[in-house]
């Protein structure tokens, strides 16, 4: 597996265009691979005959992994001689205890299939000493030399943090003075000394819980997109209903129906697997004293707006009385936050740490909208809807399609 791009560490085989016995010319594209950036071709180093292909389609291989062998002329083979792996002489590996384990560090078992690949260390990219991109040959993948940069916390700093029950987020206010901007123990002690004597109180349990959830969630790359939605049809529809759902419930129902159509949008990315829920359970952020609680409405796509309304009222009441049980707040795949109730038009709310999506609803307000037919501005009630998402699972396009579908569904509230 050649280094096909500066940041490439591994690639997945998309297609193998030759089989053993095929004659190949120099620089012929024989394998197509896909990296996180592009689909690219692996070419032959020289002319010859394909002797063996070790790689499999859909397999992922690190840079330097042997994908196959080309039987070449002796002259060509000699050109590549210095890159060939040095085999231990005789049975050294068997005779020296631990020797086999040593070489085993370059072997990684692939997900599921149980197959593994060997890394030819001599084929790892050669980097000049002192270069910015040092290669750590201890593991399989190249590791940048700056690994122990600003984010690195030494065992000593970690121990002190553990003693004081500090998280990394608590250290955000410290500009590290150590190597590569590291926070040193002196920085930490100085910082702690600085806050000493300032008024402080112990936060409530719910505050601590929210803090922890938000800190965990923030470890992901989160992004937010937004759209305007016209609330007038909703307000008209609402007047006809009993019980009367709030705008947030219309949004919740629209989110559930849109997710039923686009279930991948709420998938959670865990360890290289996109995990989907079997049912569309949506959480609703409820402001309780000193924090937020998020009770979950089960099967929101299969529940009528009327039933959603009564269930919602029930849960909000339980939440405000702090009577929610654990199973009432767990298992949601997305949540909704009606920050408009605080008089806010726009926000970038943070999804719960175990969810990919959070739909936000801003405050409705009268705005002039251009009416093409009449050639005049007409008043309409508009609000902003936002969709915050885990950018690992979803891109702007995917999030945008889901949000557009939600707005579309909200335009015809009678069908919700």
């Amino acid at each position: 597996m050649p280094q096909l791009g500066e940041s490439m560490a591994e690639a997945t085989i998309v297609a193998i265009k030759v089989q053993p016995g095929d004659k190949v010319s120099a620089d012929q594209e024989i394998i197509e691979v896909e990296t996180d950036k592009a689909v690219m071709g692996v070419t032959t180093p020289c002319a010859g005959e394909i002797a063996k292909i070790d790689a499999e389609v859909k397999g992922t291989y690190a840079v330097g992994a042997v994908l196959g062998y080309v039987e070449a002329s002796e002259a060509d083979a000699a050109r590549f001689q210095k890159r060939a792996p040095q085999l231990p002489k005789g049975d050294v590996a068997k005779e020296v205890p631990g020797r086999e384990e040593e070489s085993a560090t370059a072997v990684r078992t692939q997900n599921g299939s149980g197959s593994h690949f060997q890394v030819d260390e001599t084929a790892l990219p050669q980097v000049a000493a002192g270069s910015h991109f040092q290669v750590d040959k201890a593991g399989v993948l190249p590791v940048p030399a700056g690994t122990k940069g600003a984010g690195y916390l030494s065992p000593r700093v970690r121990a002190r943090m553990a003693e004081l029950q500090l998280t990394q987020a608590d250290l955000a206010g410290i500009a590290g003075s150590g190597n590569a901007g590291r926070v040193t123990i002196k920085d930490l002690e100085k910082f702690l000394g600085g806050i000493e004597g300032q008024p402080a109180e112990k936060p409530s349990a719910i505050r601590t819980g929210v803090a922890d959830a938000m800190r965990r969630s923030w470890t992901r790359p989160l992004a937010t997109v937004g759209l305007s939605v016209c609330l007038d049809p909703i307000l008209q529809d609402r007047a006809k209903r009993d019980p009367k759902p709030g705008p947030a419930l219309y949004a919740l129902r629209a989110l559930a129906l849109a997710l039923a159509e686009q279930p991948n949008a709420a998938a959670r990315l865990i360890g290289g697997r996109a995990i989907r829920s079997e049912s569309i359970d949506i959480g609703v952020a409820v402001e309780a004293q000193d924090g937020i609680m998020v009770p979950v409405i089960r099967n929101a796509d299969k529940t009528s707006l009327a039933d959603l309304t009564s269930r919602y009222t029930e849960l909000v009441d339980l939440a405000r009385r702090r009577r929610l049980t654990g199973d009432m707040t767990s298992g949601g795949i997305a949540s909704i936050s009606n920050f408009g109730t605080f008089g806010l038009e726009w926000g970038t709310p943070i999804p719960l740490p175990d969810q990919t999506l959070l739909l936000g609803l801003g405050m409705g307000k009268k705005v002039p909208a251009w009416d093409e037919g009449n050639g005049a501005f007409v008043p309409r009630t508009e609000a902003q809807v936002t969709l915050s998402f885990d950018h690992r699972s979803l891109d702007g396009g995917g999030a945008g399609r889901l949000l557009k579908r939600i707005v579309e569904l909200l335009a015809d509230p009678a069908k919700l």
Partner: protein
Amino acid sequence: MSVTYLEAIREAQAKLLRDDDRVFIYGQDIAGKFGGAFKATKGLAEQFPGRVLNTPISEDAMVGTAIGAAMEGMRPIVEMQFADFSSVALNQILNNAGTQYWRTQTPCPITVRLPSGGTKGSGPFHSQSMEGIYSHYPGLVVLTPATVEDAYTMLIDAVAIDDPVIYCEHKYLYYHLKADALPTEKLPIGKARVVRPGRDLSIVTNSAMVHEALAVAQQFRAEGIELEVVDLRSVKPLDTATVLASVARTGRLLCVGEAFPWGGVTAEVIARVATEGFHLLDAAPARINAKDTPIPYHPNLWSEHRPNAKTIAAKVRQVLAE
């Protein structure tokens, strides 16, 4: 008046012979005019007739005889010509002396003096540091004095200890170290000494390397970097508490040893700090030893083979930069 490291060893032996009838010295060519390969017993045979005895060239027999004498209540000091040759007596030292008390409840108070470490041009058989080997085995006490004062008091203490003691005296220090007078105070065996207090990195070392480390610390001082230097003094027992306290102050550890790199004292110190003091570390602990090859004869090769001020300084920078 001044006293060298070698003279301190001689004076300690004279005092021991004077103060305790049970003490005798046993070694090759130590009696008579020769006074031992390094003159550590010069004049003692005349001063203490019958108690400074020449032996055949058999380290095995020397230690074996000493063990027998110790069982009968004597306090023998065995002088090896070079630490390297003590390997000939490994069976007596490790299997007999080291295990004796545990097998028989009869103590084995022998002291084996090992002229250790390298000097220019001494080659592979006259330069080795053996403290790592002896520390590995139970039942032995292993001392590596780095100063004139320690050379004196630790040898006196060694003879007083009921267990077999391996006393590693560094040949390079014999003539290079001088003190104004013999010491009147001492630090007990098993206690390390902070030779130079510092703030930024702890160099934990022993024997002649203490002086290399001090030279490096002096060099870094000009840059405002303060290195703490800890002299282990006694390799076994090892003063883990003093080492941990030093690492707690500095957060960084570099172990320097003249012995070979595989296993040994520097590895043991790092293992203990990593096990008991991981939370004290700001950087991965590092060590520098002699190279993992036999010790070269040529002076230029030799001075690059062992850690020296230049290579120690480079390692210090590496640990500080992490």
